[in-house]
């Protein structure tokens, strides 16, 4: 199979995959009540933005904010459609991989340009009405935004290290903002464009059309493919989305220090569960429940405050029980077993601590509000 044909096959497969994901999210009800109305509302808002821009933006807001928003929405990732299995089947056919990646690169170029064009068109009423840019300037802005997007995509494949990549990304954002604010000259645009294109051409020649960077490209492809899927899972109420500990070392108790001084086996188990609770970020859910309950208590009338207190605490109790069972469900406890009789004692302490803090805070809040009234 030739590289171009393989690229087309992978591209079609990707579209089928996206369609399946979309159809899992957008059902008839979602379409009728959210997507459909949005399709009508967006053009209307855009026309309104031209007619009455001050309804949507203020002249006191700096252009930097708008450019930051554009940069955040812009950017992109190279999609080469490479897969793990290509190491087995295509690695020796270097020409096929290179051709597939060349097509993927070109499509990415086009896609980033199209995205930059649409974003600039969307921002144009504000740029025109508030910051004095002309319609003709929009062409240059599309170009600057495209350069930014291409360089970001390239950096994702070439810059190693999370912080180094963040630094490069920040530099590219500044470059884009500087260009739009200070260098709206066709001459500068052409020179800078030529430099960017040469850099990207060299990047293609020395990295992309070779196989030395294949692992990074496969990882980036996987990330790009699952980016929106992750968002959907995070937003879904029915899907369990556990958050594992990040990084190589823990943030809390970095040197594996003790939490309690007691040498009892139950103390070690309780300490282990608390550490996992902190490091697996289960506390986020805890503070979400507590925060929502506190907000309810703050905003609702007196009789409803007590209802919120009761239901919030009941919900928190069952949630804590669920989390406790989750924390104890680990195959590791088949390798190192704990004393079964410790479980009920540890549950009581685990519950009393976390439930007690929440109950105390909520009761204090109600007390302060009542006394304040």
């Amino acid at each position, binding site marked *: 199979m030739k590289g171009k044909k393989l690229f087309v096959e992978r591209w079609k497969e990707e579209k089928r995959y996206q369609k399946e994901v979309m159809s899992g999210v957008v059902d008839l009800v979602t379409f009728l009540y959210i997507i459909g109305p949005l399709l009508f509302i967006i053009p209307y808002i855009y026309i309104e933005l031209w007619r009455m821009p001050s309804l949507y933006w203020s002249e006191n807001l700096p252009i930097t904010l708008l450019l930051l928003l554009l940069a955040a929405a812009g950017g992109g990732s190279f999609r080469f459609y490479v897969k793990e299995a290509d190491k087995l089947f295509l690695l020796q056919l270097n020409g096929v991989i290179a051709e597939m990646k060349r097509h993927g690169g070109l499509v990415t170029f086009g896609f980033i340009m199209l995205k930059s064009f649409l974003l600039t068109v969307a921002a144009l009423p504000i740029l025109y009405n508030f910051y004095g840019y002309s319609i003709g300037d929009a062409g240059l802005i599309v170009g600057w935004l495209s350069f930014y997007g291409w360089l970001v995509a390239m950096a994702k494949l070439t810059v190693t290290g999370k912080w180094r990549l963040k630094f490069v990304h920040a530099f590219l954002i500044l470059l884009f903002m500087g260009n739009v604010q200070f260098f709206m000259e066709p001459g500068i645009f052409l020179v800078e464009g030529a430099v960017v294109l040469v850099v990207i051409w060299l990047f293609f020649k020395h990295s992309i059309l070779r196989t030395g960077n294949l692992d990074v490209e496969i990882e980036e492809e996987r990330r790009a493919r699952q980016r929106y899927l992750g968002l959907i899972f995070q937003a879904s109420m029915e899907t369990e989305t556990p958050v594992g500990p990040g990084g190589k070392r823990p943030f809390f108790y970095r040197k*594996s220090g*003790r939490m309690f001084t007691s040498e009892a086996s139950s103390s070690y188990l309780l300490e282990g569960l608390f550490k*996992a609770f902190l490091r*697996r970020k289960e506390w986020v859910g805890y503070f979400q429940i507590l925060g929502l309950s506190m907000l309810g208590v703050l905003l609702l009338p007196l009789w409803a405050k007590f209802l919120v207190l009761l239901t919030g605490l009941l919900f928190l109790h069952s949630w804590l029980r669920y989390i406790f069972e989750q924390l104890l469900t*680990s195959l*590791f406890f088949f*390798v*190192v077993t704990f004393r079964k009789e410790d479980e009920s004692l540890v549950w009581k302490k685990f519950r009393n601590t976390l439930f007690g803090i929440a109950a105390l805070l909520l009761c204090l809040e109600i007390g302060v509000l009542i006394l304040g009234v």
Partner: protein
Amino acid sequence: MNVPVLQADIHKGGYQESDVVQDIALEVYPGELVGLLGPNGAGKSTTIKSLLGILPKFEGSIEIKDYAYIPERPIYYEGWTLYEHFTFLFSTLEESFPEEKVGALLHEFGLYDMRHHYPERFSKGMQQKGMILLSLLRRPDVYIIDEPFMGLDPKAVKRFLTMVKEEQKRGAGVLMSTHVLDTAEKICDRFILMAEGKIIASGTMEEIRRASGLPEASLFDCFDALT
């Protein structure tokens, strides 16, 4: 010999939809190393899961003293550092934590500098080393070890075998599933050969040779002839 540290009589064992192992009778005596051998899919891991009591379908009886299990794929507790796994282990043994001994062993296995890291981020070999240390430090009556050599470097294999020998001398029994037949032939006292969920031969090297009809053969050749 004296009382076995592990005695199993598995009539049936498997998952919801099917039986994977049948009629498995085995014993491990103190100080003995028994090799559990068989081709892929023979039922070795299912037998081990039966012994641990983590199989959904099981008929039979298991008598096992205090044991330590080294799984084929290292299992750690998500959210604990390697060091915290050791402190937790000693809390379950109700012994004071032997900081120096653990430190020395971590040094020996090249894990000391990463003791405060999450073991999930380690390479497969390093994870396996940590798992082996956790099990060996327990000093139980019997070890159940599933494919211990996977991902271990030769130095770690040698150190592991020395530690197993020391544990045998202490009186611990070992049941070890492995595909590394050359090593198994050198270190095991007895063998249990499995195929298609059943025991097809068992005994000492001599008995395995007799069963295979190859009086001078290596374990590798006997295994080939029998399976």
